[in-house]
């Protein structure tokens, strides 16, 4: 009985946090891109535009959901549901950290630890293409159809190098459970170099990591591979006929997929929640230090405000960061919070790379996209797998 209650609590918590993070990822993306382009970004709703996701949500809910008369109604309504379901399922097998013990109950920071976790993520992400393809087709619109076609062709093509890139670290760690994959990368070479598969093992998987990330961009339909929704040629691609919450479902699915892919890359290549350098050299003190410095910067700018409202908002943020720094340095919380901090820091860094590239690179042409997948990425992934397999067989 305790198991069921704990699982329900964990499920609710994970769904709530995940949806919130998805909503705020949009804010982060707009803010980061704005700063890359020397703009302010959202700044009207709440301090520094922090309530913008809430405003967007209210706007999307209160808008009229238009059902165009020329669509295939069943599939038109089914497609966003499929897309959002498939993107939310995969988070259930992602481990975020080690164990938590509250009173007599011990539970791991993960909804469920399947021994085929990585396969489940692959299966669910390969089903996610139905949402986009069906949405494009059932809209009965030439732009939407082209977007749907492009997206299914692109996802099938990039799934190949992605799967091959996933297989090579799996050969090294020798398990399919995501928790065991992360645990296999604990420890340090020469006392300080982490045993992450990206930089250690018989053959460093740095190429597999790069191939995985490139394919992940295509799988999540992000710039420079966002051909399915290329706005200068296809208006908005597969979701051109969608409005209101159906449109929100597609964009939720895209951002949720982005987070999942970054979690998988962290677990497979970047050692999950294991810190960059050993705790003996003080990796536990990094998190309080970062939060303390951030808090101090906030307080300083609150005292010398650039804009009138900063006098009131920034000290509050400063206090929040000081609180986090204090929380991170409480001794009995460190074993729980440090893995979580390192995991979230790596995922956050990869998400930042996603946004950074969106602000930097132009979109590819369609034939370039396909040629790149089949003529370069696929052979490169195959070669990497061959070398890895050979070296693993030699050293084991």
């Amino acid at each position, binding site marked *: 009985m305790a198991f069921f209650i704990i699982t329900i609590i964990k499920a609710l918590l994970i769904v709530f946090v995940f949806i919130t993070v998805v909503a705020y990822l949009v804010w982060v993306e707009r803010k980061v891109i704005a700063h890359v382009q020397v703009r302010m970004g959202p700044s009207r709703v709440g301090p520094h535009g922090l309530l913008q996701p809430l405003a967007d949500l209210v706007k999307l809910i209160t808008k009229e959901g238009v059902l165009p008369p020329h669509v295939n109604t069943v*599939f038109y309504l089914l497609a966003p549901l499929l897309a959002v379901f498939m993107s939310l399922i995969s988070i259930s097998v992602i481990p975020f950290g080690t164990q938590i013990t509250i009173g007599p109950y011990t539970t791991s920071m993960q909804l469920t630890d*399947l*021994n*085929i976790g990585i*396969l*489940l993520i*692959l*299966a669910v992400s*390969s*089903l996610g*293409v*139905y949402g986009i*393809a*069906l949405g*494009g*087709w059932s809209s009965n619109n030439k732009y939407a*159809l082209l977007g*749907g*076609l492009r997206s*299914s*062709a692109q*996802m*099938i093509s990039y*799934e190949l190098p992605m799967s091959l890139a996933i297989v090579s670290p799996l050969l090294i760690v020798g398990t*399919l459970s995501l928790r065991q994959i992360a645990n296999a990368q604990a420890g340090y070479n020469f006392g300080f170099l982490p045993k992450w598969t990206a930089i250690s093992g018989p053959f460093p998987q740095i190429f597999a990591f790069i191939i995985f990330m490139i394919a992940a961009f295509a799988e999540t339909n992000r710039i420079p591979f966002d051909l399915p929704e290329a706005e200068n040629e296809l208006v908005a691609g597969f979701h051109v006929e969608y409005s209101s919450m159906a449109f929100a479902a597609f964009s939720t699915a895209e951002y949720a997929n982005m987070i999942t892919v970054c979690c998988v890359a962290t677990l497979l290549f970047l050692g999950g929640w294991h810190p960059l350098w050993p705790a003996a050299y003080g990796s536990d003190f990094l998190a309080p230090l970062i939060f303390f410095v951030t808090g101090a910067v906030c307080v300083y700018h609150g005292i010398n405000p650039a804009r009138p409202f900063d006098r009131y908002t920034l000290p509050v943020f400063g206090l929040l960061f000081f609180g986090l720094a204090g929380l991170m340095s409480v001794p009995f919380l460190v074993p729980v919070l440090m893995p979580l901090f390192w995991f979230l820091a790596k995922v956050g860094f990869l998400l930042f790379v996603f946004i950074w590239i969106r602000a930097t690179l132009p979109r590819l042409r369609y034939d370039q996209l396909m040629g790149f997948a089949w003529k370069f990425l696929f052979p490169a992934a195959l070669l990497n797998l061959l070398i890895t397999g050979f070296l693993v067989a030699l050293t084991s």
Partner: protein
Amino acid sequence: MDLAFFIVFATIAVISAVNVVLQRHPIASALSLVGVMGAIALLYLQLGAEFLAMAQIIVYAGAVMVLFIFVIMLLNAGAEVRRGRSWTAQLLGIPALAVFTGLICWYFQRGFGNAGEVKFGGFTGGSAQGVGYALFTDYLLPFEVTSVLILVAIVGAIVLARKEMD
């Protein structure tokens, strides 16, 4: 519990399979086929063949059926027009179905009549390690022959496509 899950997923599989034939639009038929694949994968999962279940979803539901739907979308095939059945189909359809069902029942009764009840968790050889070990020890020859067969199919497809192009 096992029986309840089995009945749920088996019913979904059968209904989807019938729906593949009954639907008039090719996309609806293809999606029903995805439903069949998914339900069968869940039945595999229930039997303890977890790797096979996921491979079923990745390969059939995630790759093969996506290609089917891709082709249907590309050709923009509309709903098929119902024509009247031929007199042989009208006359022999139901008797032939009855005979086939009877044959299958008879075969299972003969072959597996005294088999025990299947228990959830009774079979544990379905992990990735188990399947890989079986493939590369007991079933190495069929495995390699299958891969050669697939290679032949790819080469054949390319030859046919090139003839079209020239």
